[in-house]
């Protein structure tokens, strides 16, 4: 399988690799996927008092497309409000990285990771979840 240049770039130079302290009140952690399926993504966001995502970090167990998808979303969520970040769609990720059909699930997982990280942050801070979508 050949990978797009963007996937290779993110794979070889992943952005924002690492971890924040999970217990930190301003941090939201999303852990999605399953080892048995061959993909696990951990996405963490650091949210300012104004509700802006000021930093993000990830770690991913998975193929090149999974690593690239999660690396990409750490760049995308930075500077966004929680609501804005929650609107990132897997199709945008897939399109940006030119993922082939068999790799679409990687972008779906990245979208799930953002949502999980936001939900974790909201839960921790006693913020009301928006009405179920």
């Amino acid at each position: 399988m050949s990978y797009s240049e963007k996937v290779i770039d993110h794979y070889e130079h992943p952005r924002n690799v690492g971890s924040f302290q999970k217990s930190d009140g301003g941090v939201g952690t999303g852990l999605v996927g399953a080892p048995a399926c061959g993909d696990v993504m951990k996405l963490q966001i650091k949210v300012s008092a104004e509700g802006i995502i000021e930093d993000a970090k990830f770690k991913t167990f998975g193929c090149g497309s999974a690593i690239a998808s999660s690396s990409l979303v750490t760049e995308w969520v930075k500077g966004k409000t929680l609501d804005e970040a929650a609107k990132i769609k897997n199709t945008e990720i897939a399109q940006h990285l030119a993922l082939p059909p068999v790799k679409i699930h990687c972008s779906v997982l990245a979208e799930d990771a953002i949502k999980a990280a936001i939900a974790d942050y909201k839960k921790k801070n006693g913020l009301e979840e928006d009405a179920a979508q």
Partner: protein
Amino acid sequence: MSDMTAIQGTQNSGLTQPIYLDYQATTPCDPRVVEAMLPYFTERFGNPHSRNHYYGWEAEEAVEKAREEIATIIGADPKEIVFTSGATESNNLALKGVAYFYREKKNHIVTVVTEHKCVLDSCRHLEQDGFQVTYLPVQKNGLIRLDELEAAITDKTVMVSVMAVNNEIGVIQPLAEIGAICRKKGVFFHTDGAQAVGKIPLDVNAMNIDLMSISAHKIYGPKGIGALYVRRRPRVRLQSLIDGGGQERGMRSGTLATPLCVGFGEACRIAREEMPAEAKRLTALRERLLKGVRERLPEVYLNGDAELRIPGNLNISFAFVEGEGLMMGVKDIAVSSGSACTSASLEPSYVLRALGLDAEMAHTSLRIGIGRFTTEKEIDYAIGHIVEAVSRLRELSPLWEMHQEGIDIKSIQWADH
């Protein structure tokens, strides 16, 4: 051979192309094989089945000489060798051919869950046609249990089909013991020898093998040709899959591809003559690689039996690193992964799963195939390259992080997706 090594060495030191470490997928033609084949494309182009003139006789002589080489390497008689297009066709012919020929009397086949797809698929085909098939499990080391085999054979069993060497994990099944059981029980013993011939000593008589599938391109011969060994005494009969001019004693019609037959024969001659020395050299390279990787990386697991495996195969799980991601990281070496992402399905290797490996461990495996043209320098390069990639990807892996923190990954409730 020395020429070939020199060429590859030069290419690899500059790494204009990756180092080839996928010898279970295929092998390059040995230059001596190509040399032997060449005249049969041009001046000696005759149809080996033309009985009336020089061109035919010349081609026939070459084909028969090749047949003899193929027979010799497995201790068979040349008359027992049927040329086919490759091991896939041979396995189809063995399974379907025997099953259909004896279907009035017997309708049961015993095989193994880790067989090559072409054996499993032929069995599925037979099941749809009313045959019964028993799929034996394997132990953790990849080998079948002889008592389970014996217990699976009934008076309706026509044939046992157990591969000699597994294509993914390189383990060698106890052929002589299986053969003895089959002979005692009066059932045919077929073995898929595609990964075994030329790698380990084989003797169809000592091992009581009745049918054996062989492939040329796994032993430095050309692609597009293989053979099926079919025992003559006691006689094994089979129904042909391809009908026509009645070539190959009616078992496989079609004009033989003289150059491919010649190349196949030459490949067998070389393999037979060089097997002892090559086995020793490849075993040393294999152990060097495994040791080199293990010295520098924790959590590295060998899949398949450590001793009962062919010299040129390693199948290693690098825990907490996903196989396809790893393949992308080791782009300077050409290897294959047991991870499923390489195929369209999301299921990891059924062979590794059959060993009882957790799906997550099956997702972290690499198959490394070492062969005739692999050098020590290439192995050393591969060690460094693999260690670097695994280390980098572990730094990226949330599972590695959890493992470092002492969290048992199995204790987490993972979502299915």
